C-alpha cells in the first residue's frame, strides 16, 4: 500500500510551488481579476511553454507527458492555494473527455491544438439549478454534414476567452438523460456569441454563451451522439474532483494565513493565537483540511482507475460526490472561520481571506453544493450501490 506520493510526484509539486509562488501572488491575482480576460495571458504562456502543464494528461504518442490524475490534482491543489485564475482545470476536463471518448482523429487534432496552448472549457446548463444530463436544454439538430447547435449556456468557466468549448446538447424532443450529446465547438464559430458575467468571486470568471444555429461537422461529436448522457455525468464528476482539489488548496491557504495572523496579533498583552477558544477553532479547521486532503487524493486515484477501465461509472460518481460534498463544505467552513478569526480586518478588501471566502462560495455552488452531492450518495447508499 503506497497511499503517498512518489519521489517524482514530489518533485513535480515542488516545481509547481516554486512557479506558482512567483506568478500567482496576491497582487498579481488582484491585478488580473480586474482585467477583461480575468487572468494573465503571459502566465498561461509560461505555464504551457516552461512548465508544460498542458501536456500532463496528454499521452506521449501525442507529444504529451502521459502523466496521471494524481499529478494533475496535486497541481490543482496548489493553484487553489494561490487563487490561481486561468482555465487550467477546465482545459484538463476537456482533455480527459478526449482521452476517454475521443476518436483517433479527434485526439490527433485537438491534442495538437491544446499542446500548442489553446484553452478549453465545458458548457452544460442554462437556467437549471443542477448540473446534470437531465438539465441540458440546448439542442443538437442533425444536418447533412453534422449538427446544428442552438441554446444558451450560463456558468461557463472562462467561457468568454476559451478557444474551444465542449458543449452538451440534446436531440430535439428528447428528455432526461436520453438524447444528450457532447460536441467540441470552436468559440470563433459563426453564430456563437459570448459575454463575461460579473461574479461575486472575481478570481474565477464565468461567462454566458449563446449558440444560434452553430453548424459543426459530424466529427465534432464526442462519443456516441445522442447517447452521451452518461459520459456527461462522468465528465462532470471528473471536473468536480478538479474543483474539490482547488477547494482543498484554498482551505489549506485560508488556515495557514489565519494562523500566521493570529500569531502576530496581540490583545490583552498576548497573541490571540494563545487563546484556547481560538486554538480550538483552528484545530477544527485543520481537521477539515486534512480530511479534505484524504478524500481528494482518493478521488484522484479513482479517476486514474476509471480512465484505465478498472473503476466503473458508479465508483467514479461516488468518489466525485464524496470529494465535492466534503471539500465544498470544508472550504466554506475554513474560510468563514478565517474571516471570523481575523476579526475586523477580515471583512476588509485589503486582506486576502475575503478572496478565499468568495472562492469557497463560488466553488461550492459550481457543479453542485454539498447537500446535492450527499443526496446523490444517499441514493446510491440506499440502493446498495456504494
Amino acid at each position: 500500500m503506497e497511499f503517498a506520493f512518489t519521489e517524482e510526484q514530489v518533485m513535480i509539486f515542488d516545481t509547481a510551488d516554486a512557479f506558482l509562488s512567483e506568478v500567482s501572488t496576491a497582487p498579481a491575482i488582484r491585478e488580473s481579476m480586474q482585467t477583461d480576460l480575468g487572468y494573465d495571458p503571459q502566465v498561461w504562456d509560461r505555464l504551457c511553454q516552461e512548465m508544460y502543464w498542458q501536456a500532463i494528461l496528454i499521452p506521449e504518442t501525442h507529444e504529451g507527458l502521459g502523466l496521471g490524475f494524481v499529478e494533475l490534482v496535486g497541481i490543482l491543489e496548489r493553484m487553489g492555494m494561490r487563487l490561481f485564475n486561468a482555465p487550467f482545470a477546465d482545459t484538463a476536463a476537456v482533455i480527459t473527455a478526449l482521452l476517454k471518448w475521443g476518436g483517433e482523429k479527434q485526439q490527433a487534432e485537438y491534442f495538437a491544438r491544446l499542446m500548442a496552448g489553446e484553452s478549453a472549457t465545458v458548457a452544460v446548463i442554462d437556467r437549471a439549478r443542477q448540473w446534470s444530463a437531465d438539465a441540458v436544454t440546448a439542442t443538437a439538430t442533425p444536418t447533412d454534414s453534422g449538427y446544428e447547435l442552438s441554446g444558451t449556456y450560463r456558468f461557463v468557466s472562462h467561457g468568454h476567452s476559451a478557444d474551444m468549448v465542449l458543449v452538451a446538447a440534446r436531440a430535439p424532443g428528447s428528455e432526461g438523460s436520453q438524447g444528450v450529446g457532447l460536441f467540441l465547438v470552436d468559440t470563433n464559430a459563426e453564430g456563437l456569441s459570448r459575454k463575461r458575467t460579473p461574479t461575486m468571486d472575481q478570481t474565477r470568471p464565468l461567462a454566458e454563451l449563446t449558440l444560434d444555429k452553430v453548424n459543426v461537422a459530424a466529427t465534432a461529436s464526442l462519443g456516441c451522439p445522442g447517447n452521451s448522457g452518461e459520459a456527461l455525468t462522468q465528465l462532470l464528476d471528473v471536473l468536480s474532483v478538479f474543483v474539490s482539489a482547488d477547494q482543498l488548496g484554498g482551505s489549506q491557504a485560508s488556515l495557514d494565513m489565519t494562523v500566521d495572523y493570529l500569531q502576530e496579533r496581540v490583545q490583552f498583552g498576548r497573541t490571540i493565537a494563545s487563546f484556547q477558544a481560538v486554538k480550538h477553532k483552528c484545530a477544527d479547521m485543520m481537521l477539515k483540511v486534512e480530511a479534505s486532503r484524504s478524500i481528494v487524493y482518493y478521488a484522484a486515484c479513482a479517476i486514474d482507475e476509471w480512465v484505465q477501465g478498472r473503476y466503473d461509472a458508479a465508483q467514479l460518481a461516488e468518489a466525485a460526490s464524496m470529494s465535492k460534498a466534503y471539500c465544498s463544505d470544508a472550504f466554506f467552513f475554513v474560510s468563514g472561520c478565517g474571516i471570523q478569526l481575523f476579526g475586523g480586518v477580515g471583512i476588509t478588501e485589503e486582506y486576502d481571506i475575503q478572496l478565499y471566502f468568495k472562492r469557497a462560495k463560488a466553488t461550492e455552488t459550481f457543479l453542485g453544493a454539498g447537500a446535492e452531492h450527499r443526496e446523490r450518495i444517499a441514493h446510491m447508499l440506499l440502493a446498495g450501490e456504494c
Partner: protein
Amino acid sequence: MKLTFSAEDEQFRQEVANWLANNLCGDFEPIRFRGGPGDEHSFVAERKAWEKKLAEGGWTAIGWPKEYGGRGCSIEQQVIFNEEYARAGGPGRMGHIGETLVGPTLIAYGTGEQKEKYLPGIRAGKDLWCQGYSEPSAGSDLANVKTKAQFDEASKQWLLNGQKVWTSLAHESQFCFVVARTDPASTGQKGLGFFLVDMDQPGVTIRPIPQLTGTAEFNEVFFDDAVCSAGDIVGAPGDGWRVAMALLGFERGVSTLGQQMLFQSELDDIVKIAKENGAANDPSIRQRLADAHIGLRIMRYNSMRMMSGGEDGSLQKEAMIYKLYWASWHRNLGKLAMDVLGPESELLTDAPYELNRLQSLFLFTRADTIYGGTNQIQRNLIAERALGMPREPRGTV
C-alpha cells in the same frame, strides 16, 4: 500513490481469511462480533480461549519480530489481518494491550530478563495485561500521577501505593503496567517510573465502575503496599514518562482499518433499519446517512495516509487529527442510530437494562470523545503541535 495491496499481500489476506473461516466457528460461533467496545464484559471465558486458539495458529503478536515469537509482519499485513479479523466477526481481543502496547515497549526498552519473562505469555494468548496510567487526579493531565513507588531496601523490591482508574479488563488481567512516582519530591513528567506489576497479590484491589450502559468495562485499581520486584521496572527510576509515552506511539494505527470495519457494520445496520422503517425517506436523515458514509470513507483514506507515511515515528498531520476525527464521527453515528430508530430507540431488549447493539453504541460512544485524550485535549494538541500555536499556560494549583 496506489489504492491497492500487492499480490503477495492479497495472498496473505486469503491465508488469514481461510484460517478465520476454519477456526472462528463451532464453539466460537457465539462470540463472533461480540466483546467490542461497550460489550467487553461479554463471553470473557470464551474470548480467553479464543486468544489461545489465535496463538496456536500463530496469529497473535504478528507484528513482533520473529526472534520474539512474532511473525514479523509488515504494516500492510498487520492492516490486512485486522481487516479480515473484523470482516470475519472476530471477537474483541482480550490480549490486545499486551500484544500491541506492552510487547513492543519491552522489545524496545525492556531488559533481556523482562523479555524472557513476559513476552512468551503474551505471545501464547495466556497472559492478559491492563494499563495503569489514569488516576483520579491524573485524567487529561496524565503527568499528575500521585501513585508512589518506594524501593524497600529490606525486601529489595518496590512497594506501590495509590489508585488507578478507568482500567479496562483489570479483573481479567494477570499483569498491569503502572506509571508511579519514584521520586516523592517530583512533580509532572519528572521522577516517574514504569512498573510491571502482578495483579494477583494481596496489595491489589479491583473495583468495577458501573457505567451509563449498565455494564462495567472499567475498574478502579487500588495499590496498598503492592509489591513489584527490582527487575520489573522498565527503564531507570525517573525515566517512566519517556517509556509511557513511547508505549502510546507503538500502535501506529494498524488496528484503525479493523476498527473501521466494525464502524462499517454499525453503519450498515443503521442503513438497513432506515430502509425498513421509512426513515430513509426523510431528507435530513438521508443527508446524515450520506455524511456518515462519506466520513467513514475519509477515515479509511486518512488511515492509509497515516500508514504510508514515514516510519520515523513523528506524527504527521493526518495522524494528529485521527482521534478527534474518528471519535466525533462515531459519536455522531450513535446519535444517528437513535434518530433513525425514532421512538423505538427508547425500548430495551429486556429488563433490567438490556441494551441492543445500537443503544449500546449510542451510549458508549459518549466515552469515545473522552478516553484516550478528550476532544478538547486533542484540539489543544493539534493547535500546539501541528499548527505551532502557543501552549496552554500551566496552573500553579
